[in-house]
């Protein structure tokens, strides 16, 4: 369905979501804000991309979800990293490292 650049972006989004869940289990809005925070505001993830990604990753078995209470005592759906998710984070991190190195090399070439 998606063309090549979005695949790259999708991979990035997955990586960012996984990374944001390393420290603690948080809900959707929390993930969105955490990503905004750790990328210094570069990436703003809208619900339209966030939810499909979360549900897809849950079906992949990388994250799992449960209903809990938010900081303001609201019911919210929380996500946490699974074992497979941690492994996937490693894989994605390595892949991203390779890609960014390659891109950097390409840009530095005369």
């Amino acid at each position, binding site marked *: 369905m998606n063309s090549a650049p979005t695949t790259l972006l999708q991979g990035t989004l997955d990586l960012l979501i996984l990374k944001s869940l390393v420290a603690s289990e948080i809900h959707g809005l929390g993930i969105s804000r955490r990503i905004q925070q750790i990328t210094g505001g570069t990436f703003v993830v*809208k619900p*339209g991309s966030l*939810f*499909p990604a979360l549900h*897809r990753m849950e079906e992949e*078995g990388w994250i799992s979800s449960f209903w809990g209470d*938010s900081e303001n005592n609201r*019911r919210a*759906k929380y996500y946490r990293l699974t074992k497979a998710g941690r492994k996937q984070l490693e894989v994605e991190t390595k892949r991203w490292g390779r890609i960014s190195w390659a891109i950097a090399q390409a840009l530095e070439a005369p």
Partner: protein
Amino acid sequence: MPLFVKARSFLRNLFLSRRVEIDLDQEVHSHLSMLVEENTRGGMSPKEAQRAAWIELGGIEQVKEQVREQRIGNWLHSVLSDCRFALRQLRKSLAFAVTAVLTLALGIGSTTAIFSLINGALLNPYPYKNAERLATFVVFSAEQFRAWRFPATAFVDFKQQNHTFDDMFGLVYRKVHFTRSNGTEEFTAGSVTPDTFASLGIQPLLGRPLTDEDARPGAPPVFVISFRLWTSLFHRDRNILGTTHTLNATRMTLVGVMPPRFQIGDFELWLPLNITKNTFIPGAGIQSNEIWTVGHLKSGVSPETAAADLQLIAAPFQKDDPIYFPPHFRIVVNTLDSQAVGRDFKFGLFALMVGVTMLLLIACSNVANLLLARATTREREFGIRSALGAGRLRLIRQLLIESFLLAITSCALGCLFAYLGLKTMVAVIPPDTIPPEAAIRLSPAVLLFSLCATIITTVICGLVPALYAHHANPQVTHTSVGKGVSADSRQGNLRNSLVVAEVALSIVLSISSGLIMRSLFALQNVNLGFNPSKVVYADISLPEGQYDTARQKHFLFREVLNRITRFPSVLAATETTNFPPYTFGWTTVAISGQTPPQNRNTASIFCTEGYFQTVGLPLLRGALFSQNDVDAAHRLVVVNHTFVRDRFGEENPIGRQVRFSDYETWPDWPRDPYFEIVGVVADAKNAGLQDPPRPEVYLPGTLAGAPPRGLMISTTGNPHAILERVRSEVSAVDPNVAIGEAGTIATRLDHYYFARPRFLLITLCTFTAVAFLLVAVGVFSVISYTVAAQTHEIGIRIALGARTTQILSLVVKRGLRLILTGILIGLFASYFLTRLLSSQIWGVSTTDLSTFATMASLALFVGSLACLVPARRATLVEPIVALRHE
């Protein structure tokens, strides 16, 4: 593990979709309210906070839809929803759906039925181990033009010296008298080498098979019975194992019951046989010492190679046994599979297969046409849907799913048709055309076949309209005005020629079945001179040794006849060596004073004085022989009218002397060989129902002991009751005498003469009916399509003042042109094709005018009727609606 998670998600999405949806809804809403909260905390007014949150979220439904699209198994959901939609569509046009399903079901059903028949009778007739390698062989002489089996000495050499067979076992045919408290019955039994059972690899249903131990000289006599005999004689009693019975006056122990499909040799029971060079099986005739040899060819060995191998072994036999191995003899090896079904029937089956495949294709094209007609009327729907963003693939998938639903329903219905059809076919299959081992049923292979047929059907039916829909460009659909029939004349030609082919095929089929029907009627109306359902016949099987001479035989028969003729419902009874309508004994009759003829062209019957009355033969001249003549074995002969016409012309035959040189080698034949002609009777059928009677002579049965004989009784009462009384009388005279084949002459005619044409008739009639139905559907769908495509044009015509009859004839003319072309082609093809049937047709010309004319008008009638429905619809077109439609 991830695979497990995925599977769980897939199942949850599929079966708990409500819960998944509720969960999603709650999550999105909770997200929204948290966004609002965040914004209020940031200092916005509640209204503003709400608005900003909505903007960030971007629409609850859109988010949900995006999530749904990501879900595992999403494709299945959309296919299911397509299915639901298709079902709704089909329910909306029920008439269309029923027609289409019926048409396809008939196509799939008939192909499946014929394929089952071919699979059961031709491809896998035998249930035995490695059945495809089983082969048998005979000695063939081109000079004598016959093939036969061989005696034990040869069998032993073949078995020991061959290099081309894995195993080889021998079976010897023999008649067995099974004596029980209520009389004696005769069965065909096989004396078989005990390795037969292991070679065929079939375990008994009960008990044990025969063993080498059983075949040793002096071993206690044992036997094994067929499932058939177990059912008919013992009513499937499991306790009969180990019981002893009297077979051919010997007490034998029953040790096993074989399963239903073990029918090697078509025997009822099997006895052990140890074949050595000296084996001689006592019994009447030479036939009981000819061995039917069967074995598994070594893997990869062809019948020809095996024949060459056996030929080498047999070469020296020619010197020792020139009767069985005449000069220039050849060994011919055939696989059992290749001999399972006669060549005629095989040809018939393949012809049927071609026929039903054509039927299926025609059914497919009909349904494709129906779908096309529908697609035309649904053009707007497709236009709107593609304007709303449905992709072409999505539209094609939708159509394919519709036709797939049709095909699956048809497949189920088709299997039901096939099941019922098979039951009927198995019931009417002529006797002895398929081996008794064959099981004709819907097997997994057959069901797989029909599934394949369904898939092909789907593709053919679905693809044509789907490709058409592919062209349904929304813009064209809405702007084009002048699209008429001429717009796609190439497709139109294909459709039209299909209808023409259907009509032609139905004509050929219906004319063939009409001709077969007329010949069956002609056969059934052949006048035998008596009522065949009121004449009972019974073969009498005599125990060995007791009834060898004519006098011994006559003593028995005279006693039985005396007892039978005492019954009030018996008109006449006779002893006879033959039962109508075919005489098996052919002989040369020399007339004194004439040169003897060279050929054996005269039928001869040995009988008692009651014969003529029993079969209603009127005396034309002279006298019949009396009871006294028969008892005293007077040398008298009665001849038929044809004999007199052929041999004497206008001369008076009474008192002339004749002799029967063929019989003079019999030991008990009178020493004075001259017989006197005493009477002339009318002709009766003696060469089968179809052929005219040949010359025939009737002799007193007391003259010779050799020919086997039976009883024939003419009755006014219930023939089955009479038969029962005959059984009890025969058994009362001598409990060791058995009744062999018995029944009424009518059942005999049915078995030998009517079964074949009836089978052909039923098969052909079924296909004719299906063909006519297809013609109706075919014409209907094409004309409907034309009308649908011409709605606009018809609307204009009506608006301009065209009358109803003009519109009607516009549409009907088009249909009639197709039908008439088809009829002409069909008649022309039938004129040549019915000749292929000439061997099956009797009493009517293969180009019988009335049959041709009847079937042509029937096709015309069916075709016109199918035209009228859409034509009437055309006349109901409202000009305003038709014009606004565009």
